[in-house]
């Protein structure tokens, strides 16, 4: 039976950006983008204009996450329309510039796809971050990538949470894709992490090229981990943390955390247990940058999404 009538017809993804240095101390993206700005052969694909771009050059120069404020939280409607020019925090100015070049966010002129390259100190392996469960183009791309790298794994984190979702630099594009690879310390470049990110991007660009050339992708199921809750460290009255991620939870991103499992360990060795109502899948466990955001880890729930068949319009 022909599935033509069920195939979503989408426009070509011609304009593609690759962002590195959104956090200036996440070195895989900084290094890859700098490499491709010098020589873009590796990212050339027929029918695709791939633009590598350093989003936060001042932070990259200082090898720090940000200068004034987190660029990857800065793309709110308020910030993007804020007056004030030079008086604005550096990253808000950057967000406005990026929105001009790659957006405007939400408009037909916006870039088709933006890949935003990140590292994490958490043991997340290769993770693709999805911002909408209804983005069938991205779902199909992620399915393609997962199949291409098998048996190596690449998991999909879906952040559609009404409160925990945030305004990322990639959100300027029609199809924003986050790439998060860890564990890697800030300021450090690990060869294996760098090469893994490179391979993921290679497959992502291959997918876009195939799509633009007219290949149709049949409907498929994609397993995702949907962000559920942010869990902070136990803190005292002054806001100082009084316990650490438990050794049994440390490095166990994506593994089931059941009620009663160890979660934190106090400085004198006592265990604090997870008190949730059911099994969750924690991730971003002990990410350095999240201490100040009051987050020891996020919980996720496993879900299977169905991606429509897609083809070029």
């Amino acid at each position, binding site marked *: 039976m022909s599935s033509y009538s069920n195939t979503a017809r989408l426009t070509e993804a011609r304009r593609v950006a690759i962002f590195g240095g959104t956090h200036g101390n996440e070195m895989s993206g900084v290094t890859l983008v700098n490499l491709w700005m010098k020589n873009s052969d590796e990212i050339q694909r027929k029918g695709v204009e791939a633009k590598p771009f350093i989003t936060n050059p001042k932070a990259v120069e200082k*090898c*720090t996450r940000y200068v004034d404020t987190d660029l990857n939280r800065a793309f709110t409607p308020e910030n993007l329309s804020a007056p004030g020019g030079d008086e604005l925090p550096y990253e808000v100015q950057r967000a406005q510039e990026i929105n001009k070049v790659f957006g405007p966010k939400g408009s037909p002129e916006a870039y088709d796809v933006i890949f935003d390259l990140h590292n994490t100190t958490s043991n997340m392996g290769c993770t693709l971050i999805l911002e909408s469960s209804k983005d069938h183009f991205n779902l199909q791309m992620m399915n393609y990538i997962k199949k291409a790298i098998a048996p190596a794994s690449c998991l999909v984190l879906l952040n559609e949470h009404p409160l925990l979702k945030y305004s990322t630099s990639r959100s300027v594009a029609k199809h924003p894709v986050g790439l998060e690879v860890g564990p890697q310390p800030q*300021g450090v470049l*690990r*060869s294996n992490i760098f090469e893994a990110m490179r391979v993921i991007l290679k497959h992502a660009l291959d997918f876009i090229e195939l799509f633009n050339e007219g290949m149709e992708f049949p409907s498929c199921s994609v397993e995702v981990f949907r962000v559920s809750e942010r869990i902070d460290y136990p803190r005292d009255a002054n806001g100082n943390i009084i316990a*650490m*991620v438990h050794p049994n*939870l440390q490095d166990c991103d994506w593994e089931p955390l059941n009620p009663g499992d160890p979660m934190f360990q106090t400085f004198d060795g006592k265990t604090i247990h997870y008190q949730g109502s059911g099994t969750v899948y924690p991730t971003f466990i002990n990410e350095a940058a999240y201490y100040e955001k009051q987050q020891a880890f996020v919980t996720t729930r496993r879900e299977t999404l169905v991606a429509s068949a897609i083809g070029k319009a």
Partner: protein
Amino acid sequence: MSRRNRKRRATGRRKKQEVAGRPAVNRNIQRLLQASECQAGLQRDKAMESVSFPPQSSIAICGGTHGNEMTGVYLVREMQKHKVDKIGSVSISTVLSNPRAVDVCRRYTETDLNRCFTDALLSSPITDSTPYEVRRAQELNAQLGPKGSEKAVDMLIDLHNTTANMGLCLIFYTADYLPLQIFKYIQNKMSSVPVRAMQLDIPLSDAYSLDSLGKHSFSIEVGPQPNGVLRADIFNIVKEAVDHTIAWLQEFNSGSTFEAGEVEAFTVVKSVDYPRDPVTGEISAAIHPQLQDNDFKLLKPGDPIFLSFTGETVKHEGEELYPLFVNECAYYEKKIAFHLAQKRTFKLPSIHMKKD
């Protein structure tokens, strides 16, 4: 078996990255160094008499010398919260060395505090343009030193973390028998993590780090841990090492004799920088996957050390040496990809407390 179940069964093994695990004892040491440059002297052939030292009654435990090395920051804070100032015969000062850097969770604010303790910097005049860390070093020298004087604390233990897979590593300047005996003691007591010693062959006047203020001092360097991250397993290791050190001091002060023996330590002989672009100075290669996380594993000529971004392998040339501090975050700006060291055996005499 899931990772969590493997963790339940493992005793103290760390599960991250490509952890090398506890290395095998190296049976292919090419040569032992001659004793000439060792200040404490190596008496290789004749039996060594027991050496005495005064009671070790005042110690300082320092954390946050680098503000983003979290284990020391939190251990010192905990000790201060519990008002730890004396344990048995040992009075303890707990010091947050670089509070400004700790506040912003950065290694330093203007200059690396742990390079400010040379004689020259400790005596340099303070002006309006003197960096914060140089001033702070002089304050710490007044509080815990003065360096080289009788008033200095008996022992200064400085707590550090590294992004390199160094396990638990004690760092000394001289082959001082007291810290070496403590190293031997800790090595025998702790089996959950590799315990090693690193020696910097530098005269006291040029000694640049905080621990040089104390009469008998060492740093405890534990990794791998990212900057800004507090890992429970690493915290527990450092806490245990500090507890063993204090226990040793109690035993020493109560008159125990610590037996003669031998320890191996690694003496740094040179450092290797990353390959860099000749025009921009940017690095053009990463530590090779076969070297990454293999600190203390003998590097032979022909072994890969870097993998360039365009896929070429750079190999080690020259003598067989031991790499340390492989891919330490803070060393990119110091143009160090890793140190190379020789392994030396130190014979220790038995030591005991000098009675009045």
